[in-house]
């Protein structure tokens, strides 16, 4: 605006009107400062209004669903909903021995009240499933008892303890009391391979039931390996592309861009075709006599296959940022170093390489972020040793139906990725991502 004023003055326009105090005014008598501020605000609002529909869209259909999913990792309504009176009665229980008759009477009342509800609204079924996550056989204790409860007569304590052995186990009661709160940390405890002991302390699980920490570590190690491999393969070709004349570089760039634009499933099936036991590579090796027909190599449905396929799939994400950085490194620096007596290796190490670091950082973080949450390729070619944390999340989502645990694992993965995204943003800025 100041520029526009200056231009207006330079063009020999009338001097701008002022008020009595000498402040600049617009033609209709509003102080210029106010008018400018108002215009500024209007433009801010106008700019924001342009963005608003999209922001609304993303918040509603993307951010909100994810936040809601994360909520499931602490949401714990089952016990509270099914056993309100029992929880009340349990308040004074010290947790050492099986509770007394009043608690069992309350349990009976709760179960009877639940049976009154229409089937879809009954809370007993979900309660059994919830408790079974914490204690095996709790589900059948609940569901079997629920069927007999209408015939129970006081004293209820004996009736319950006769119907299923678990009612006489203080461990079940401790779990009911502990999970009798609307929010729980139990899913995170489980996601970290920990559990509550009899005193309510968090301890590590039995060695033969630990899964997730190990799986997270494996996921990270595989992602590091993939990132490193893409770097090792991506660096030479990016350098080569950057020193070629543009015409040839663009031509060779197709080798990078074609895989980038080819369907993920196409590339994954290509690797299956190449690597499976009756596939192209094994058959060729047998034909040229390098391996025997019985000694065909297992290169797929394991970690090796997953790493090969993912390196191939993610290599373009390393090459593209590296190439764009290298293209802008003036060759004169290295020439200067060499002319000053540096060996080619020293010139590369001390002069060239440091200038590529932004590209390496951008490509590395990008490849790492993508591979750490990868699902499809490990699911198709991972076998057992190539499974990653995403596959476990999907399994809990779709098969074991422990959605709270899936949400807890997902939240942990998401937080990891967001931290990396933040680093990436600091490093290069999200909007400077180059595409193709």
């Amino acid at each position: 605006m100041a520029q526009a004023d200056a231009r207006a003055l330079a063009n020999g326009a009338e001097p701008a009107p002022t008020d009595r105090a000498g402040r600049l005014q617009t033609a209709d008598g509003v102080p210029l400062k106010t008018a400018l501020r108002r215009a500024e605000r209007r433009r801010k609002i106008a700019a924001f209004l342009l963005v608003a529909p999209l922001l609304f869209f993303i918040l509603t259909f993307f951010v909100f669903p994810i936040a809601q999913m994360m909520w499931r990792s602490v949401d714990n309504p089952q016990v509270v909903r099914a056993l309100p009176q029992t929880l009340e009665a349990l308040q004074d229980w010290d947790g050492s021995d099986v509770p007394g008759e009043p608690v069992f009477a309350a349990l009976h009342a709760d179960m009877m009240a639940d049976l009154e509800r229409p089937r879809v609204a009954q809370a007993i079924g979900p309660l059994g499933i919830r408790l079974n996550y914490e204690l095996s056989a709790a589900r059948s204790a609940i569901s079997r008892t629920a069927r007999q409860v209408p015939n129970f007569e006081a004293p209820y304590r004996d009736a319950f303890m006769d119907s299923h052995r678990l009612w006489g186990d203080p461990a079940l009661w401790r779990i009911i009391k502990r999970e009798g709160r609307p929010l729980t940390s139990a899913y995170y405890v489980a996601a970290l391979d920990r559990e509550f002991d009899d005193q309510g302390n968090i301890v590590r699980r039995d060695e033969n039931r630990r899964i997730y920490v190990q799986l997270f570590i494996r996921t990270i190690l595989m992602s590091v390996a993939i990132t490193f491999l893409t770097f090792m393969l991506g660096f030479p070709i990016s350098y080569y592309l950057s020193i070629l004349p543009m015409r040839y570089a663009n031509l060779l760039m197709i080798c990078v861009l074609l895989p980038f634009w080819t369907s993920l499933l196409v590339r994954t099936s290509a690797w299956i075709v190449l690597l499976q036991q009756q596939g192209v590579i094994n058959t060729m090796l047998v034909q040229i006599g390098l391996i025997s027909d019985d000694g065909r190599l297992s290169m797929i449905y394991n970690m090796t296959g997953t790493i090969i396929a993912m390196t191939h799939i993610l290599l373009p994400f390393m090459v593209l940022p590296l190439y764009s950085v290298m293209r802008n490194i003036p060759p004169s620096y290295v020439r200067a170093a060499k002319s000053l007596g540096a060996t080619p290796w020293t010139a590369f190490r001390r002069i060239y390489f440091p200038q590529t670091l932004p590209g390496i950082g951008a490509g590395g973080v990008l490849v790492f972020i993508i591979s750490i949450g990868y699902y499809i390729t490990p699911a198709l070619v991972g076998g057992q040793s190539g499974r990653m944390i995403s596959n476990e999340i999907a399994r809990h989502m779709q098969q074991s139906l422990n959605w709270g645990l899936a949400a807890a694992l997902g939240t942990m993965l998401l937080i990891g990725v967001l931290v990396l995204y933040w680093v990436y943003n600091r490093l290069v800025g999200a909007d400077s991502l180059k595409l193709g």
Partner: protein
Amino acid sequence: MALPAYATTKDKIWYYTFRVICFAIFFFLLAPIVVMIPLSFNAQPFFSFTREMVTLNPEGYSLRWYRDFLGSDSWMRSIRNSFIIGIAATVLATTLGTIAALGLSRSEMPFKGAIMAILISPMIVPLIISAAGMFFFFSQLGISGTYLGVVLAHAALGIPFVIITVTATLVGFDQSLIRAAASLGASPTRTFFKITMPLILPGVISGALFAFITSFDEIVIVLFVAGPEQRTIPREMWSGIREDISPTILAVATLMVLLSVMLLTTLELLRRRNERMRGITPT
């Protein structure tokens, strides 16, 4: 960069070794994709080259897997679905994304960094997490297992690409052109269609292409959110790979590679046009 005349033997060895390494890597990138193409014409249901194929005997080749593909109702339906969903998601993402990019590229845009981070996030969040969230939320809305659900989800995934490409085009955009148009009496709508749109069009189209290919290639969301009627090409391929991997998959894959080549060419032409229009010539 040719080898200078004064190069030593060591230089020469390095020069050639380096090129051999590079071409090996290019081979690694392209070979898997290229290998599938002849195998998709295999007359036998194997994933290796038969003797007839190697000796170029015509009997080793056939179009049976293409006939299988073209004669299958479920594959044909998946093609239709992929295009319906892809195009609808692209239109939605491109429209919302372009308008938003116009706002984002204005200097007076408040909270630019934070908003940008939110709008780009669909590209960063692992798909399994997005899919899990949408699975629950879309079920509640009653749009899980509908075209609408998949389209909304795919549009969300395509938006970051539109934002990135369009804002990149707008970086070199001269805002005074808009002021000039306004001062000459053009309405904002007219200015948009007559001035802004032609200039940012290459960015919009390449953003749209990215959004389309994102939807066209997407599988995780489809696995969680789509119903049996919305099975797309990747979804059919997923079942094919997991259940009985037959060379039909390779025939589909070959056609998909053809499609990628077409998209890639379009994009390259757009890039050149954009550079010409903005006076940047390739060095």
